[in-house]
């Protein structure tokens, strides 16, 4: 009996199987492998993967969980496969979207033309929780605010890719994308011989290239560092991983200081000027002089140094206004306004409680909708109407009425599903996809992303803080979705990945000086 026998799509769009139960063409090689494999063998490979994860310390942190906050990241071994033509569409859509978002941020921090022309009400922008008035009028390198964007895509019942949200501040998860691939290459090496999977391991090289572009123009061999809030941050593993992979310093606020608008790093050989910071610290905590004075995580004077053009920051300051879920609803209009193009990737239909008509509709249909707070993330501050009790719905309706600007609602998208290995067999679980867009002189999207899985049966919440896991995401080469794809692609795991493992998990990397490129 094959692993895939008895698999049910249950009316959802399934990434692997068509409605009639036959595997989609781009999944055929995988299907054949799985059908030829005994459950015991699959189980053994899962155990190997789990051990690898634990040994490498690939974890994430759940705040407020008393049973020890650090957990290994659950990885499901059935990959999510995206055929080449679908990826082309996604790539085109994301490139377009991030271009528009950067033009929007440049505009709202300068002339606010989009507001004056009546496309987006100005009150939504200047009163957004993450709009930074202090930063109005400041010039930023190359007029780019968002250098790294993680946009969450979902597929609805008919398989259409839609944008669920943009993450323009400090999107995380890219380390899981990279690690998932390494683990799959180790546990299922043969699969990579049968499928033409495009590589993703150049992500950190591209990222470093982008970061170096942000250095002040007179700095020819710039020093780049990654600023982390520290070991208690949920994404600390990722911070150390990325710094390690790029060969740059991993620093905390206390390792840096500002003098006369220049930023320096304290080293054993004295102060060393820093030219670019990949900062994984939120605006609020970045600089106690400009933002929250009680923050001990930041660097006093950093924001003014950035404004003076003496240091590059990625992402820029004030990008959170574009993450506001109310502003999200206007992104399709932004694309039309700035680029004179129609959006390639549609949004999910969104109701804004801020509009009186929408508010009425939301309150009346709350049991059919997903309601979200405008500025929360990680699956917090939301209500899934169809899965909530009446009391919960009523309570949420009151919250919305009390503060309509801060809530939006969307119909529950019947997220596509992908087979997952659960209790010795394959079952469908809902997934989303977060590709990572790098925006420098050109916009590049590494072919892949983080596929997040809602591991609990029937759940729609994919966030790792809410019981989500991940899958390796394979983008196939053009022509690679035909049967019997060439065996020459990616035969073996890359040396780069293997080498880095011995050094993983350190609190900080040695002070190497300049970063290799």
């Amino acid at each position: 009996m094959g692993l895939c026998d008895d698999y049910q799509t249950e009316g959802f769009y399934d990434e692997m199987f068509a409605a009639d139960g036959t595997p989609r063409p781009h999944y055929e090689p995988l299907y054949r492998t799985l059908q030829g494999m005994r459950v015991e063998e699959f189980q053994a490979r899962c155990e190997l993967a789990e051990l690898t994860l634990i040994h490498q310390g690939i974890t994430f942190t759940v705040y407020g969980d008393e049973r020890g906050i650090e957990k290994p990241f659950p990885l499901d071994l059935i990959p999510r496969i995206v055929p080449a033509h679908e990826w082309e569409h996604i790539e085109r859509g994301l490139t377009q979207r991030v271009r528009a978002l950067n033009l929007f941020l440049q505009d709202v921090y300068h002339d606010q033309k989009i507001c004056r022309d009546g496309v987006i009400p100005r009150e939504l922008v200047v009163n957004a929780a993450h709009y930074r008035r202090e930063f109005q009028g400041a010039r930023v390198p190359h007029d780019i605010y968002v250098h790294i964007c993680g946009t969450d895509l979902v597929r609805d019942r008919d398989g259409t890719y839609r944008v669920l949200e943009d993450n323009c501040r400090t999107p995380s998860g890219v380390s899981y994308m990279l690690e998932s691939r390494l683990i799959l290459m180790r546990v299922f090496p043969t699969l990579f011989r049968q499928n033409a999977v495009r590589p993703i391991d150049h992500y950190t090289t591209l990222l470093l290239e982008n970061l170096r572009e942000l250095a002040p123009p007179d700095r020819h061999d710039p020093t780049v560092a990654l600023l982390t809030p520290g070991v208690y941050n949920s994404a600390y593993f990722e911070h150390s991983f990325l710094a390690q992979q790029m060969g740059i310093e991993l620093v905390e606020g206390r390792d840096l200081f500002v003098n006369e608008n220049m930023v320096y790093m304290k080293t054993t050989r004295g102060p060393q000027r820093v030219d670019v910071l990949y900062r994984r610290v939120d605006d609020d905590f970045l600089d106690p002089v400009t933002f929250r004075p009680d923050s001990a995580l930041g660097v006093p004077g950093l924001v003014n140094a950035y404004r003076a053009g003496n240091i590059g920051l990625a992402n820029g300051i004030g990008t959170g206004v574009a993450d506001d879920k109310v502003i999200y609803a206007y992104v399709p209009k932004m694309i039309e306004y700035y680029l004179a193009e129609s959006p390639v990737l549609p949004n999910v239909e969104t109701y804004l409680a801020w509009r009186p008509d929408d508010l009425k509709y939301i309150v009346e249909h709350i049991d059919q909708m997903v309601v979200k707070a405008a500025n929360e993330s990680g699956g917090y501050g939301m209500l899934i109407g169809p899965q909530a009790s009446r009391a919960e719905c009523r309570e949420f309706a009151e919250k919305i009425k009390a503060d309509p600007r801060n809530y939006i609602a969307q119909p529950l998208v019947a997220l596509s599903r992908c087979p997952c290995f659960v209790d010795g067999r394959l079952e469908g679980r809902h997934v989303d996809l977060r590709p990572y867009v790098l925006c420098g002189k050109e916009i590049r999207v590494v072919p892949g992303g983080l596929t997040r899985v809602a591991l609990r049966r029937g759940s729609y919440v994919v966030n790792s803080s809410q019981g989500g896991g991940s899958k390796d995401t394979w983008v196939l080469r053009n022509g690679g979705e035909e049967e019997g794809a060439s065996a020459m692609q990616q035969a073996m795991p890359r040396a780069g990945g293997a080498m880095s493992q011995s050094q993983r998990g350190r609190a900080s990397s040695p002070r190497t000086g300049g970063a290799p490129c």
Partner: protein
Amino acid sequence: MLLRVHHKTTYRYSAPVTESHNEVRLHPLTDEDQTRLEFQLTLSPPARVFSYEQPGGIVSHFNIHVPHTELVILAESLVQTYRHDPFERLNWVEDDWGFYAREDIRQRYAEYLAPTRAVPFHPELERIAQLTRRQAGVSAASFLYTLTRLLHRLLEYKPGATHVHTTLEQFLENPRGVCQDFAHLMLAVCRREGIPARYVCGYLYGGYETLEIRGQQASHAWIECLMPGERWCGFDPTNSLLVNDYYVKAFVGRDYSDVTPTRGVYRGPAHHELTVEVDVKDAEREADRR
């Protein structure tokens, strides 16, 4: 008037401070009401000063990396002010509230209509507005003038009763405070009524009359409201006055946190002692005397 402003801020620390980063908003503005003719910032210990423009005024910042037990920030300026007759061009008779319902106005001044942490919408505001409406005429100016006087009467001016972090709720429970509290409360009432209003930090010349004027010893705070015709007009609830050419504006913002005259962080002892001296002189009279 030609006013000379002398503003000295001194921080004294019980042990040496080794690192200090500061932002100051002390440059008087140049706008339709006043022109900044001279400005000088003197620091002790000395430091290199950087400045830039922000919405609301000019920000200067500096850092000090030499150990020090005292930091002195001295701002001296010479400003020409013009609003000799604050009643000029104000409408007292016609109902002009339609102006505030205009969508273009509501959008253009959206940040001055929204509540903030220091200016929250409290149920008590509606009561104050009703009380004001009962006593005021039909125009917006009349409402604002009446509100200015009402707040002056309802609230007790008591330095030391509040501090910079006192919330509006606390102040409403115990309505004793200083110009900052008066200004925040008036802002909240105005915004709830749909009148764009902003916080102003600056200085007030006490004159040579024997009038008791509050807010001369330190920097002063009042508010500006957008009047029909789209110009800003100042109201000072602490002194129950319309703002005239005795007032010098340094910075405007949504509330106190946007305009803080001096702010910063330092590495050193937990406690410090702060003294502020402000002196505003009539420069023409000074010259005459010489």
